[in-house]
């Protein structure tokens, strides 16, 4: 039904209601006034007048009393006659008032209905536009629906879908990007591993030969050999890092209580960073059940805590692990009391080989590996500003749905 038809039906119904109401009102008012001004009433009152006069003549002593009654009846008769003469005016005014009130109610109701209908159509148009945008792959969809009716719920679902799709696209882009870096690292590691092994063997063989022929130079040759092997070890460690980054294994998740896991991590690994205090904070007494590969998750926490320790330096500091539920996700905020993330690297923090440390002090692969691990778990790793000015990294993992209860 279009708006015009709805408005016509509404107007017709309103008119019929008003007419029916007016008819009933007229009948009722005529009955009520007609009763008061009925001919029989007047006749009885006039008869009463005659009676009073006769009584006064028969009993002159009580004349004033009868006269008083007589005057009262005359006054009443006059009032009734005036009301009778104004019957139509009184009825019309009452009708006009009540019809006005009913008409106003009907008009307001109709206006509200039409406004609501118009607003609903506008909301539907906005929803259609949003759904079309969603189908085109747009991610910035904000409908701003505050009502919780069907349209409001659909709008909220569209917004959620757009956000989820945008997040999936970001993850996909990141993983594709990371995959390219991993392939490059794998090739570098492969290319470097063989010459490094050969070089190490050559150093061993060369020093042994020289020592046989020049026994008097043994201390110098040992020192040179040690120095060369240390450099080769560094290169081998460098290659191992490449290999580790290139071959991040698939997680083997198992259900776990994340709060318990983090608490155990803090207790076990506290001695590794003597100047750091590791603290656990949680905002719910519910278990933080997730499905995760404990070893890989531990690697992430080690990476993050290690970064915090390096950022804090020789000072004493605190790393706080804060757990919370956010909808269907469980978040773990890792916040330190360090100087925070440098603004110049904030946007590419999770790209491989991004580091604020000097050359030779780290490859800048830890955060990339950690993010990859979280993405492989269906979660994410992101950065945020800490409340106290330090760095905060937020780990998100899907909450594990509680197992359905079975009947005993």
């Amino acid at each position, binding site marked *: 039904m279009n708006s015009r038809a709805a408005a016509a039906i509404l107007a017709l119904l309103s008119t019929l209601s008003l007419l029916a109401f007016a008819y009933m009102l007229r009948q009722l008012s005529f009955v009520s006034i007609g009763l008061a001004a009925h001919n029989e009433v007047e006749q009885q009152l006039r008869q009463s007048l005659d009676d009073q006069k006769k009584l006064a003549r028969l009993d002159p002593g009580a004349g004033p009393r009868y006269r008083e009654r007589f005057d009262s009846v005359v006054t009443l008769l006059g009032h009734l006659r*005036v009301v009778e003469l104004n019957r139509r005016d009184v009825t019309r005014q009452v009708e006009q008032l009540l019809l006005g009130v009913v008409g106003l109610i009907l008009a307001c109701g109709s206006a509200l209905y039409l406004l609501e209908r118009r607003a609903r159509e506008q909301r539907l148009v906005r929803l259609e536009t949003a759904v079309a945008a969603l189908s085109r792959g747009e991610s910035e969809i904000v409908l701003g629906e505050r009502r919780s009716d069907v349209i409001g719920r659909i709008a909220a679902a569209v917004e959620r879908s757009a956000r989820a799709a945008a997040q999936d696209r970001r993850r996909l882009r990141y993983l594709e990007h990371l995959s390219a870096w991993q392939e490059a690292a794998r090739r570098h590691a492969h290319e470097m591993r063989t010459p490094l092994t050969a070089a190490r063997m050559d150093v061993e063989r060369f020093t042994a030969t020289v020592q046989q022929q020049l026994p008097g130079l043994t201390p110098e040759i040992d020192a040179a050999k040690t120095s060369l092997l240390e450099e080769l070890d560094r290169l081998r460690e460098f290659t191992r890092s490449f290999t580790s980054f290139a071959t991040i294994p698939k997680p083997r998740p198992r259900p776990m209580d994340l709060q318990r896991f983090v608490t155990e991590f803090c207790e076990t690994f506290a001695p590794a960073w003597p100047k750091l205090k590791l603290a656990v904070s949680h905002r719910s007494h519910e278990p933080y059940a997730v499905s995760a590969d404990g070893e890989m998750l531990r690697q992430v926490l080690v990476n993050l805590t290690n970064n915090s320790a390096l950022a804090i330096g020789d000072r004493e500091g605190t790393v706080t692990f804060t757990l919370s539920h956010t909808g269907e996700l469980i978040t773990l905020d890792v916040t330190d009391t360090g100087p925070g993330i440098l603004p110049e690297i904030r946007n590419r923090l999770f790209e491989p080989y991004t580091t604020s440390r000097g050359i030779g002090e780290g490859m800048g692969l830890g955060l990339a590996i950690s993010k990859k691990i979280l993405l492989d778990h269906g979660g994410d790793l992101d950065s945020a500003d800490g409340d106290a000015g330090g760095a905060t990294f937020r780990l998100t993992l899907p909450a594990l749905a509680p197992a359905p209860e079975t009947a005993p």
Partner: protein
Amino acid sequence: MLLALLAFGAGGSVPRPKATVARNGALTVTLPAALLQSREIRQQLTSGLTTVFVLTVTASGDGGTAKGGARIDVRLDLWEEKYLVTVLEPTGQERKLTFAGEAALAKWWSETPVPVTAPRKYGQTVDVEVKLKMLPFSSQEQSDTQRWLSRTLSRGRAPSGEFTPAQSAEILRIIVETSVRRRPLLEYHWSVRAIREAAR
């Protein structure tokens, strides 16, 4: 209103009033006795209420145009069975008369000229537009009835101020009170030529 229209339409069947320029220069109107014989007026006259006749005239002729009028209140005293008449003239003078019965009233009505303008100089020919309205009750009776309605309709109200259906109808009470108005029950309109009263 319907009655008034019918009366106006039937105005031609009622004998015309007589307009006279008195010797002192005042214009007078003598109303026809047949008016009092009409059913509506008889019913009204015997109701005990004050029937108000409002007479307005517009006289035009060689001497210019003059407007004037008078008011005649007639009330039957039901105890004494006498007609009490008050005539308010354009000069502001008020005359009170008493008639023992309907016949005496009709005689006075049809024979007594009622001054409708103050004395002035009229031309040779004076054409007079006469309008007569009959109001069914006086303004005093209107006020009395409004007060009576107010008292009667307010009797259902609780003195403690608690809500009653009668209280909710307060607005209706006010409307009923204010709806009581004086509207002409009959209206007549005649055009007559004034005659001059013979000099002594």
